[in-house]
């Protein structure tokens, strides 16, 4: 246990905010992509910096990771990691509504990542009367071992982060990916303040 642990009420409230945001986001995505998008119930947990690698590795054997930073008012910020498994690139272009030869596979992944991240976080932000800005999405690596090395070699300047994991499934295109939102220590306190305000309003 540590100072950043959420109380049961705080945890439930955050879970509820995320569930609602997920529902709206999947609805928007389904309209835009013209196919059903299934989202599994998200998990919320805290990770220590030294366990980040194990925790990511445990989730799935990703072959590519796209990172996108997000930041809103009241010090709410973090990094979204979209983790992809091996998949058929032509199907991904189909899903996005592009011709396969119009854009490279990397660009397809980055485009989809940006759509998934911003759609979810925009809805989430509007629920807490906030507004998000985003950095340009970046492909960290298309090779997991390199991502592992990248993450393992870093000495982080944070101890704890809040980790929210949401799995996306697009069955019509037999496509899966995980979105992992990592919120650094400082921002957790800011989120807790927002949650407390919401709880007080009830």
């Amino acid at each position, binding site marked *: 246990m540590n100072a950043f642990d959420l109380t049961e009420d705080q945890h439930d409230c955050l879970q509820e905010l995320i569930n609602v945001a997920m529902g709206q986001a999947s609805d928007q995505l389904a309209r835009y992509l013209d196919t059903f998008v299934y989202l599994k119930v998200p998990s919320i947990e805290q990770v220590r910096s030294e366990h980040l690698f194990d925790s990511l590795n445990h989730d799935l054997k990703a072959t590519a990771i796209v990172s996108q930073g997000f930041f809103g008012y009241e010090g709410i910020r973090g990094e979204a990691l979209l983790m992809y498994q091996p998949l058929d690139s032509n199907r991904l272009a189909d899903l996005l509504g*592009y011709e396969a030869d119009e854009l490279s596979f990397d660009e397809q992944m980055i485009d989809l990542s940006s759509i998934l991240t911003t759609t979810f976080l925009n809805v989430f932000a509007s629920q807490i009367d906030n507004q998000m800005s985003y950095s340009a*999405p970046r492909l960290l690596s298309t090779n997991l071992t390199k991502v592992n090395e990248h993450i393992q070699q870093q000495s982080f300047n944070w101890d704890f982060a809040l980790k929210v994991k949401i799995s996306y499934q697009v069955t019509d295109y037999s496509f899966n990916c995980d979105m992992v939102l990592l919120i650094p220590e400082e921002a957790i306190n800011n989120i807790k303040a927002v949650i407390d305000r919401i709880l007080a309003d009830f």
Partner: protein
Amino acid sequence: MLNELCGDLSNRLNTGILILDNNFKILMWNRFLEVHANKSDKQVIGKSIFTVFPELPKKWFERKLSSVLQLKNQSFCGWEQRHHLFELSHSRPITTDSDFMAQNCTFLPIEVKGEVERICILIEDVTDVCHYQTQLNKVLQELALSNRIDGLTQAFNRKHWEECLAAEFSRAQRYKQDLALVMLDLDQFKLLNDTYGHQGGDKVLIDIAEVINGLLRMGDLFGRYGGEEFAVILPNTGLTGANDVAERIRKAIASNAIEYQDKNINATVSIGVAVMDEYDTRYEDIISRADIALYKAKNSGRNQVCLAKERIIS
């Protein structure tokens, strides 16, 4: 007053600002774009973005912007995926070789009463970043290559060659494919060195490597195994095929006079050939059989090819 200031500011930014309506007509742009596109307001304002910038990939662009309009999301397009969208001049025309400005573009929805009626495109000049990143990638590639190459002969070095053999060995085992190994040793290299000096010896090694390289097929992996010893991995090749390759190499080297300081050096090689068999458990097993065959070729008078015996285990 503040409006004026904002207008002035947008014209001083080193970032392009372009505002479109939802039919892709240009409503506004700033000085940065005016200068780098070298077009006047009259040619641009009120016109379709596809008329002003015919270089845009129209279908892709429309789909990209549809996500901004429909999902009210920010969207991005980075130089690493697309070097540029707009053909613009840039700020390093002299010291880089880039024809057009490398760009990071951001597409922002501008909502009016809950509906997206305008799209703002921000265009950053990242020619600099692109230039240095490209240089860095080139150096990293060269570094990776020089880690694998033997400096004298330009063949793979021992370490990399063995890694290749290990990979080919497990691939051949997995898919039940043939795999052959050719080991060559330059005959009487010590004598060559004593006669022509070490530089003469080096010249022989360089020329021989070149001859061998010219005789190999795509997919064959050629390395310098030791001092005057070379080795070739032949994937998907049986004993007969490997013997053909080995003979071709032997004859080519024997008939190729190497010029060194107005003298002709005649070099020959002894060759041992082995193929993977079902009893091999490690790639080293093939090396030892090829090695034994090589020494047999040496002991039988050099300048010849010897095949490793097929193992019959009852």
